[in-house]
């Protein structure tokens, strides 16, 4: 049974209201620790931080528009060796939560004692854009929320502009912002038993009307769907065909940063970094070169991207961090969003929608996909 409560926003300080809520979580021992975005002393970045002492929440800034690392990766590294024995509340954006659901299915994270707190997300800036933005404003998060409400934020990353799921899909608790008078009040919603326990520990229940948020979300959804289809059609035109693909990837230096930033690419040893791909005698390179008369080096950049699409495309949550990680500003996100979307359509799979949906490449039916056979 979903439960809702409104939090009063005093003096228009939305971040302060969320901070108050998080402080209560620790104070009432609803959780033992929090993994939350905290502003670094220089104010140039906001980074995920494991907080056990309430005093350290002073600079918490969960609404600041920056996502340096996909939090699913952080939870994976925290829980992969051994699950948490203490309750940890984690603030996640929708793409982080969806990636986390996928990582759990891929057996790369353990949700034991993890309480997910999803936040409605108006979108994020690149780390470099945020570093500049945060120096120009006293309260960067507040300033951004004002811009977000007016829908005129030009700094948003391309992935955020067409994001299909700006709201958390499977969170234990959600901090709701869409469609609400956020200068006055924000919504807290519980979607699971875990969330209900927190509601009880905090004595949260009360009058709440989430209908306005639902309305705003369905309007936003249909608008975004249209934007995404237009975006994908344009990418297909720009990047379709071998020559166009090679043109998009022409600046690739095979650093594989996109893979490192990707929350879904979890392999400890990537095949594409293995000796099979890079360690060969000079004679072998000469042989490869002689086949076509010439060989681009480092070799296999198109192969790298295509293989990665095949390996993680079905689970791609379109967070866009691959593109942010590229030192040469290749439109990696565009390619992966396009390929990932189409693969997900083929498999009728929405990554991160539910822990119960089977991963497309491990499940099968006896009668299916006949069209792909000859």
């Amino acid at each position, binding site marked *: 049974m979903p439960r809702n409560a409104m939090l009063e926003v005093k003096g228009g300080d939305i971040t302060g209201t969320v901070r108050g809520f998080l402080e209560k979580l620790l104070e009432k021992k609803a959780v033992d620790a929090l993994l939350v975005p905290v502003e670094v002393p220089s104010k140039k970045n906001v980074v995920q931080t494991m907080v056990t002492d309430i005093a350290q929440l002073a600079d918490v800034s969960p609404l600041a528009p920056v996502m340096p690392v996909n939090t699913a990766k952080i939870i994976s590294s925290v829980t992969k060796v051994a699950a948490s024995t203490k309750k940890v509340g984690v603030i996640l954006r929708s793409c982080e939560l969806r990636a986390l659901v996928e990582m759990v299915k891929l057996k790369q994270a353990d949700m034991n004692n993890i309480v997910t707190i999803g936040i409605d997300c108006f979108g994020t800036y690149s780390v470099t854009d945020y570093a500049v933005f945060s120096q120009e404003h006293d309260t960067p998060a507040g300033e951004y929320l004002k811009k977000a409400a007016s829908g005129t934020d030009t700094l948003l990353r391309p992935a955020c502009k067409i994001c299909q799921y700006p709201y958390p899909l499977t969170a234990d608790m959600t901090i709701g912002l869409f469609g609400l008078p956020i200068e006055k009040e924000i919504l807290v919603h519980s979607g699971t038993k875990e969330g209900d326990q927190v509601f009880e520990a905090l004595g949260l229940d009360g009058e709440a009307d989430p209908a306005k948020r639902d309305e705003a979300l369905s309007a936003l959804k249909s608008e975004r769907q249209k934007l995404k289809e237009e975006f994908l059609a344009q990418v297909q035109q720009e990047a379709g065909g071998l020559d166009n693909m090679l043109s998009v990837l022409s600046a690739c230096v095979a650093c594989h940063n996109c893979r490192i930033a990707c929350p879904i690419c979890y392999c400890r040893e990537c095949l594409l970094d293995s000796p099979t791909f890079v360690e060969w005698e000079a004679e072998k390179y000469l042989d490869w070169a002689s086949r076509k008369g010439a060989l681009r080096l480092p070799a296999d950049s198109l192969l790298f991207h295509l293989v990665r699409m095949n390996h993680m495309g079905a689970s791609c949550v379109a967070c866009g961090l691959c593109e942010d990680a590229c030192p040469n500003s290749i439109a990696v996100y565009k390619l992966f969003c396009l*390929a990932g979307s*189409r*693969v997900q359509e083929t498999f009728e799979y929405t990554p991160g929608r539910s822990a119960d949906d089977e991963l497309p*490449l491990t499940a099968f039916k006896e009668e299916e996909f006949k069209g792909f056979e000859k």
Partner: protein
Amino acid sequence: MADDNKDFEPILVGFFCNWCTSTAADLAGTTRLQYPPNIRPIRTMCSGSVDPIYILRALLSGADGIIIGGCNPGDCHYVSGNYKARRRIAGLKTILDTLGLENDRVWLKWISAAEGQKFAVTMRDFTEKIKELGPSPFRKNWSV
């Protein structure tokens, strides 16, 4: 295009399951069935063990066609490898099609160990169809 490539002999790579298509190839040979010699067969333990990376490596290195041969649905030696292969190929062909990268050059075919005739016919068809498609654009492109 087909007329320009009358003398074009395609380079074809086959990933054939040990338990079915590879044996079918042997059967076709021992029964002296004729088929074009363009295919370079690679024996794998299961069609389900053919990761898209191998197919893409062959395609990008300039193979004009790649065919994966597995056991008929229900007959997989490892119970479900061919079903998983079909899903991988569905993903791969979706990606190649989406990016305009010649997804017609990748074939998936079920040929049992008893079907020497089907193997020979398939190789004939495959060679013919790829001849019609002409040389792969990856063949001469050094910057792939």
